[in-house]
């Protein structure tokens, strides 16, 4: 039998033919025993299939929130803690970055030709004259010794203080003058010390240069950690409550 006739018979069986097509087919069926036989086969097969009872589902296939990936409802204050933790973390990293930047900017500079700098707080008494350029320092009463002291030879140290300063500078460029305020020449307003100061200028201590106090950093870290802990606790309690309900 042709495939086309088979389809016609099957559609006719299901009432899927138009009235005109059905009439034409019925006319053929009256004269074609093979077509009638095939139609009968199709009818009995369909009937047999329809007799098969439906099986009952072995269990309920209803879904739980976990199955579909639904998240448990969180308390309203959860976003607040999340925001606080995020903000604290950002500020903490920002302050760390600032301190690092400050340390880099305060890194040791070459001492030669530089009449100032160093630890500002250590030069409160002597900073004024110390920051003056050598040419200005030469105008002071003790300026007669200054040129000599400013001679290229750093070993020339007519002043005992200068010697001490030079000696100190040999030990530590960072602590020479800052820790020896007594080395200031009372007669000369520290001008005689300038050349040695130039050589023995205390070097800045990067470790002490902080833009933001460590207290703030600890505070921010603490806030971030506490907020994260509270968020984790909230989430766990919500999940437990949600699971107990479902």
């Amino acid at each position, binding site marked *: 039998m042709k495939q086309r006739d088979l389809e016609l018979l099957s559609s006719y069986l299901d009432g*899927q033919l138009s009235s005109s097509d059905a009439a034409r087919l019925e006319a053929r069926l009256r004269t074609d025993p093979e077509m009638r036989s095939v139609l009968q086969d199709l009818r009995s097969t369909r009937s047999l299939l329809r007799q098969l009872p439906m099986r009952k589902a072995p269990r309920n296939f209803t879904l739980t929130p976990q199955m579909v990936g639904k998240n448990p409802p969180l308390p309203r204050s959860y976003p607040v803690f999340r925001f606080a933790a995020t903000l604290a973390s950002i500020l903490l990293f920002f302050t760390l970055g600032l301190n690092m930047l400050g340390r880099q900017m305060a890194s040791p500079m070459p001492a030669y030709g530089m009449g100032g700098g160093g630890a500002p707080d250590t030069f409160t008494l002597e900073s004024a004259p110390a920051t003056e350029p050598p040419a200005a320092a030469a105008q002071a009463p003790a300026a007669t010794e200054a040129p000599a002291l400013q001679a290229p030879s750093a070993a020339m140290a007519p002043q005992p203080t200068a010697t001490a300063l030079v000696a100190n500078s040999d030990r530590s460029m960072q602590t020479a003058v800052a820790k020896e305020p007594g080395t200031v020449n009372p007669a000369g307003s520290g001008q005689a010390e300038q050349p040695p100061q130039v050589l023995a200028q205390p070097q800045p201590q990067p470790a002490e240069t902080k833009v933001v106090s460590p207290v703030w950093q600890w505070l921010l870290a603490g806030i971030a950690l506490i907020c994260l802990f509270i968020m984790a606790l909230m989430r766990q309690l919500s999940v437990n409550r949600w699971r107990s309900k479902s």
Partner: protein
Amino acid sequence: MNEQALIQDAQKGDLDAFNTLILHYQDSVFNTALRILGDDDLAADVTQDAFISAFKSIGSFRGGSFKAWLMRTVTNACYDELRRQKRRPTTPLEPDTEEGEEMDSPRWLADPGMTPDQKAEADELEHAIQHCLNNLPLEFKTVVVMADLQGMDYTEVAVAARVPLGTIKSRLARARLRLRECLQGFSELLPSVFRLEEESTA
């Protein structure tokens, strides 16, 4: 059951509404998966996966026959399972009986009213039909399961199978003929069923 209202609620994320729909359709969906896959456990797993997938994609339902939409989901899940099996063939954990039959006897929806003889006959009929279904190409099997076992009309089957109406007619006709040829081999085992059929058509 107001199906449209339940569908709308489910589309808004109401899981309870969708579960109500599941309870209404789970037998049909399970039976479809069972007839396509031919295995109870696989059919149960695929049915569960199909419902999960259906809930997640229920936003894509744009009206029409919800049953056809569900059937499309479960047939896709069946195809995925069969493809997975082809890549990684598995052996069942529980051995069959000596006769090769399943360990658990099937429970029929008409269970309360069935006599033992009727139940035995139903079991034999199921075995015969499932055997013949298993011999059909997948696309033929899907069409005949939805049209003749689930009672869906041609349009619903076309929507579920995502093929044109003409293709449905062609596949259904050829599937029925093949099934008939196969089932004739079981006529000795199912004399009463076939006899009744012949008497009714005489």
